[in-house]
């Protein structure tokens, strides 16, 4: 295979992977990353085609922008150079499911919804969670480091990934971890690839350890007169033996974005305790939580089974709300996240706020039209949020913002303490800078 640069990338790519895997130029805009349109897009059918594409990209120094269900394609800084879109959704096979060993292996293009369906048939569960699970893929979810409303109890996706196969920047397949639930054989590359936004390698196959599925799901939804009473209620619940799987506080704007929640007025807050497990324990948790919250709450409602599942799904989808114009993820310890409840920023309207107070995190969302606003002023306001989050021992990521704002800031915030190591890591794995270039922390 000669390393000549083709006249048009897609002509040569179709030779490598066949016309079925090549996207017609008229459909290229489906692969836009903001205002950026790729030179071509390919949909490899298997790992042979995938590695051929990556070898071609390495030989021609063409940038590659991997994607799954494209539900979080906005996440990241603007692409640094022209390149091709690499659509991994055809790599979606179930490789190995061992219910008795509590492990599953699946290709990275499988959707989260299908993964959960396969597991549910055997009463199993893996707490890998992302907005829009019927489109979001395993690979995309891991790359974005996405997590859901039950993460306080179950941990992050990286805690469940036990094995991974990736294709590196030269198209070489490598494995890390394995298919056993406990493993310290060599370095833990699972954790390095998780949350790396496809900037080190392209995920091909993943193996997860599994948990038994909850027999029942339930939720307690309570309305509190203001933020301090809601925070007090949440912290009191956290200290009980019957503390829930997830504990969320929503201001009136955020509650309004979830249709199944009763509307509230400012300054009220909605508190949600998400409960799951054995039927006997779910009953106890529901009863005791309601009793604990009753005295201070304006109202308390109990949800069981489908309505509870629907609420969990709605909380999961909230960060990807289709009409939100600006979405910020704040990471901060539980004690500090409540400082963002009184968020005011002179150049931004008041946001919707949904806080995961047990884990320590929040989403700020806006639906306002920023087209008339000066993007530098919006960017400066967002950078203030990032600084506040850093001062609180955390960080803030601008997950979605108007296109003109993005070039005015680093959506990941100022580089973290380990940035020198991170730069060397990127240089080790992708010396030519062709994997999702420019999009990650510090422009990596």
């Amino acid at each position, binding site marked *: 295979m000669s390393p000549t640069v083709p006249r048009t990338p897609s002509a040569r790519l179709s030779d490598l992977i066949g016309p079925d895997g090549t996207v017609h130029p008229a459909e290229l805009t489906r692969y836009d990353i903001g205002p950026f349109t790729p030179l071509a897009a390919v949909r490899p059918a298997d790992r042979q085609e995938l590695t051929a594409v990556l070898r071609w990209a390495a030989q021609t120094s063409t940038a590659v922008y991997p994607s799954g269900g494209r539900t979080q394609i906005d996440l990241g800084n603007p692409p640094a150079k022209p390149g091709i879109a690499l659509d991994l959704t055809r790599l979606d096979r179930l490789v190995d499911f*061992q*219910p*008795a*060993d*509590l492990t599953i292996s699946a290709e990275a293009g499988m959707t989260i919804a299908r993964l959960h369906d396969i597991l549910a048939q055997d009463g*199993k569960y893996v707490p890998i969670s992302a907005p829009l699970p019927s489109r979001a893929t395993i690979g995309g979810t891991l790359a974005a*480091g996405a*997590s859901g409303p039950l993460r306080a109890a179950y*941990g*992050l996706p990286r*805690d469940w990934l036990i094995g991974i196969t*990736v294709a590196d920047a030269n198209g070489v*397949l*490598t*494995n890390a971890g*394995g*298919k*056993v*639930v*406990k493993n*310290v*054989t*060599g*370095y*833990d*590359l699972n954790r*390095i690839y998780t*949350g790396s936004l496809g900037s*080190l*390698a392209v995920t091909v196959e993943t193996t997860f350890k599994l948990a038994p599925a909850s027999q029942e799901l339930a939720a307690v939804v309570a309305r509190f007169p203001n933020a301090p009473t809601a925070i007090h209620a949440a912290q009191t619940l956290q*200290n009980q*033996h*019957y503390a829930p799987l997830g504990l969320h506080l929503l201001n009136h704007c955020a509650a309004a974005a979830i249709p199944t929640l009763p509307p509230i007025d400012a300054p009220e807050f909605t508190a949600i305790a998400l409960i799951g497990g*054995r039927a*006997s*324990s779910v009953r*106890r*948790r529901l009863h005791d939580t309601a009793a604990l919250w009753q005295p201070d709450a304006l109202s308390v409602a109990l949800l069981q089974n489908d309505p509870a599942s629907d609420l969990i799904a709605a909380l999961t989808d909230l960060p990807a709300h289709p009409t939100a114009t600006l979405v910020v993820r704040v*990471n901060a*310890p*539980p*004690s*500090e996240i409540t400082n963002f409840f009184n968020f005011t920023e002179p150049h931004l309207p008041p946001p919707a706020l949904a806080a995961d107070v047990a884990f*320590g995190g929040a989403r700020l969302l806006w639906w306002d039209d920023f087209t008339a606003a000066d993007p530098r002023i919006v960017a400066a306001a967002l950078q203030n949020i990032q600084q506040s989050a850093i001062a609180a*021992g*955390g*960080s803030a*990521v601008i997950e979605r913002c108007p296109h003109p704002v993005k070039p005015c800031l680093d959506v*990941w*915030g100022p580089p*973290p*303490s*380990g940035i*020198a190591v*991170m730069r*060397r*890591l990127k240089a*080790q794995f992708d010396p030519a800078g062709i994997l999702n270039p420019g999009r990650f*922390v*510090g422009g990596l």
Partner: protein
Amino acid sequence: MAAPDLLAQLRSVVGDDYVIAHPEDLLVYEYDGSVDRSMPRAVVLPASTDEASQVIALAYQAGVPVVGRGSGTGLSGGAITPPDGLQVAFPRMARILKIDTLNRTALVEPGVINLDLDNYARKFGLRYAPDPSSQRACSLGGNVAENAGGPHCLAYGTTTNHVIGMEVILEDGAIVNLGALARETVGYDLRGAFVGSEGTFGIATKILVRLLPLPESVRTFLGIFADIDSACTAVSAIIGHGIIPAALEMIDALSIRAVQNVTDAGYPNDAGAVLLIELEGLHEEVDELSAEVEAALWDTGAADVRIAEADAERERLWVGRKTAFGAFGAIAPNYYLVDGVVPRTRLTHMLRKVSEVSHRYGITIANVFHAGDGNLHPCMLFDAREPGVMDNAMAAAAELMAECAALGGTLSGEHGIGLEKKEFMPLVYTDDDMAAMQKVRNAFAPDNRLNPGKIFPDGSYYHPAPHPARHTAGLYA
């Protein structure tokens, strides 16, 4: 070479008393809990991050490799220092700096002993979950380096699941924070990569760990079986039933007798195997799960099932498990421990292989292990003074590791690769796989000055024949 002027420089940083360089004083630093040994040039005991950083920077400038040491309980040779290398140990950095009950975290120095942290946290209704059998002696810094496990990691995960952030020193002395106070961070998960990197990426000087609330109810079961096969079947039945106990441990006949010889843990002397099972949660959960666990034990042929709920009774059962490796001293003066992992459904097969290897090599092998995780600990018992016995034990261990790999398992579940298992890495990883791992090391430690010669196969060992007058193996697993 560690030139005399390096030692003088080190003394000026930490004080004369805290640079150990006399050969007799260095004897205790030449080995850890494994069978390997090598005498470091000197051991330095810094009192602060700043001192540790200066020490490591001086060694870097002098071209001297540095190895971090916790309590020396490691079981893979991780703390064995190359000849002329410098060891940095942390008995003077052993403070619990802060317990944060609202965020449920503890900030500790690397020399804090695992059990001391757990005991202290319990005063606040919290606990530190990872509980290696060496928890009375092992340090948090060493736990981080090895990604240490323990019985209760079945339900709560190993050390990596409990470390939120760290202050670490890189090979050139640079101080870097990994992770943050928040559990979710931006950028590559350097914290996750660091935990379990066996001291090759850096040395942690502050560690922020999660603490978990104490459960409302705890119940411990002793499932007594006539043979190890039926005990394995019970393990599969419990896991297959959708129950992940807090702990699920197996103790074989030889180990039962060794334990009972030393302390009455309540294990029947004539049993073929016992399972130690712990359930935790709300009263309702524990009641419901108890009924199912008990039924699973009887269904799979248990000869008897005993239940302990009172603290004293439960502790007695656990003392047996946690002192087993010390109790082996009455059978033979030395042991060598394998840490392989297999998919849980292959336990029966693997234990038959252990038995077959034991007979074929003529080596006594005891089994006390984390059955719920599929993490075996075949423990070879021998007298290292007998000629050729070490080589025989190593050859048997190699066969067992190869079998674990062939069954879809791996070489180590919680002890690390270190020196002991590095030549076996090709059983589970290709050259390309290991090259990818080394890229991460190159990012953290481009000059490979921290704990060099570990993890990856290179044909080098530091252990001469074991000293005839001394036990070479550690006390814990």
